[in-house]
């Protein structure tokens, strides 16, 4: 069974870019989503990531991530609405609840939950694009100088998704084989077992990586002859698209920081929801959407 998040080799700028460039490009919108609360900016950042991922050919991964992100977002909204009683616009009075006490559902708590949910969705979309478009083999090689003594880190970064996908398939099969009379396995229980199993198996993969020689000091450069240039790990990682993605990531971060300084991000949830659409907020939103065009490749 192939995961929608699994990397697939495709010709495209994002796939050709070095892992560092891809992370810089995909990390910038995530950083903005963490620092901003304006729903307009967050929606724009999400749209930009979705657009960029679609242009890079990660449509399948994005659709699954969007479903998961929206589900998680709704869950966050529901929990926030029940737990937080701040806000002036009471939509429903649900009376006294065990543990929670008096529960008043306010429009403000829903809006605040939606903002947190949007952030989570943006992070999931960015991770989906990373997972589907960045070659894990190149991640492994790129991490070697920094994680040479920590094969586990490299394994978690490059192999956790495929290993977890295989585990999920087996768990689902095992659940089906228990028969119709068996109690259904809840999603939370499935996720818990999956995480424990995946970490366990990631340790085994890390051991394999150690045995392959990942912890060895990188070999010195060798000059074989003029006609055959020395092989250089970092040189082999570079791509002509790197500058494009590094520049886009940096520019987006710059716009985000500048926008914040100029008063963009006009949003407050409490005591009443206030959303501003000033010029700075609009500029940051536009930059976030435009960043989605960066993986575009001219045909022909």
């Amino acid at each position, binding site marked *: 069974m192939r995961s929608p998040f699994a990397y697939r080799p495709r010709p495209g700028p994002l796939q050709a870019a070095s892992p560092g460039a891809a992370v810089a490009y995909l990390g910038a919108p995530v950083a903005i989503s963490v620092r901003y609360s304006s729903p307009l900016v967050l929606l724009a950042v999400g749209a930009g990531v979705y657009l960029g991922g679609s242009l890079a050919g990660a449509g399948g991964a994005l659709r699954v991530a969007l479903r998961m992100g929206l589900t998680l977002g709704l869950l966050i909204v529901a929990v926030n609405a029940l737990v937080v009683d701040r806000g002036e616009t009471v939509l429903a009075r649900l009376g006294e609840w065990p543990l929670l006490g008096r529960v008043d559902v306010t429009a403000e708590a829903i809006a605040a939950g939606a903002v947190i949910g949007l952030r989570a969705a943006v992070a999931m979309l960015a991770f989906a694009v990373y997972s589907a478009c960045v070659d894990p083999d190149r991640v492994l090689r790129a991490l070697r100088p920094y994680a040479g003594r920590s094969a586990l880190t490299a394994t978690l970064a490059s192999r956790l998704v495929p290993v977890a996908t295989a585990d999920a398939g087996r768990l689902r099969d095992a659940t089906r084989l228990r028969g119709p009379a068996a109690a259904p396995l809840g999603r939370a229980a499935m996720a818990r077992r999956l995480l424990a199993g995946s970490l366990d*198996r990631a340790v085994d993969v890390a*051991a394999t990586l150690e045995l392959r020689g990942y912890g060895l000091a990188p*070999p010195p450069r060798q000059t074989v002859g003029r006609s055959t240039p020395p092989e250089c790990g970092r040189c082999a990682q570079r791509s002509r698209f790197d500058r494009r993605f590094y520049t886009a990531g940096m520019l987006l971060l710059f716009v985000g920081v500048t926008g914040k300084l100029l008063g963009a991000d006009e949003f407050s949830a409490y005591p009443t929801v206030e959303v501003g659409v000033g010029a700075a907020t609009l500029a940051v939103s536009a930059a976030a959407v435009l960043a989605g065009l960066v993986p575009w490749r001219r045909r022909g």
Partner: protein
Amino acid sequence: MAELATRTAPVLSIEGLTYCYPATSTPFERVSHPNGVGVLRDVSLSLAPGEFALLAGRSASGKSTLLRAACGLVPHFHGGEIEGSVRVAGIDAIATGPAELAAAVGYVAQDPETQVVSTTVSAEIALPLELRGAPPASRARAVEEVALALAIPQLLERTVDTLSGGELQRVALAAALVTRPKLILLDEPTSQLDPVAGDELIWLLRRLNEEWGVTVLLAEHRLERCLPAADRVIAMEGGAIAFDGAPRDFLVWARDADPALETPAARMFSLAGIEPLPTGVREARRTLEGGSE
């Protein structure tokens, strides 16, 4: 003379090895060793070049830990306290890390899916050489050679997520063998394979053992499959070596000392009072057919 001594020197030499896993402290360790301990007690053994040895024993008898000690994962990767000495092809495995040891020893574990770290088969097999700085031409040659030896050249361009368990296990074996180690350690490599793929893997190992001269130490539960291929059986019990000898002697020992390790064919022969005990189904059939003629 010195060359002769090198050729006959043990590939694996373990003396007075005592080991216990660390007490669990981190989530990763708890996941890896839920019980917190796995013990070896005063284990001593020596494997000569070209031997095919089978490591038998019940669950938690210390087979896997012994193999991990022989390839340096214990104590370097798993931690814990260790005493005694482990030498692989003359290299001190306790002082040297698994990455440095990997040129002398290959290791294949039971779960094929945790044995691959690359996206494509050719990249996976080439990885150990690439990490050692081998030039691309010699990498390609070595990958082709090992792929031919393991009958997997048709898999080289495939991605690892499209392979079956048996194919994955062969790829893992190829990656372990590509550096041409003197010793290959296998921890229940057939446990997740179907019977046909399991048999094929064992006979492939035997062929590599004979043709390449690589020493094999194979831990297995399904002994009936491996006994006919083995030159020697080492049985473990409670972290110590309980038996070390020829396969046929092992069957007699297992009948008397640990019937759980008896193969089905040997048990049937024991119950029927037929001697000698067969090491495999084929031999049992031959004996029965010979007796009926």
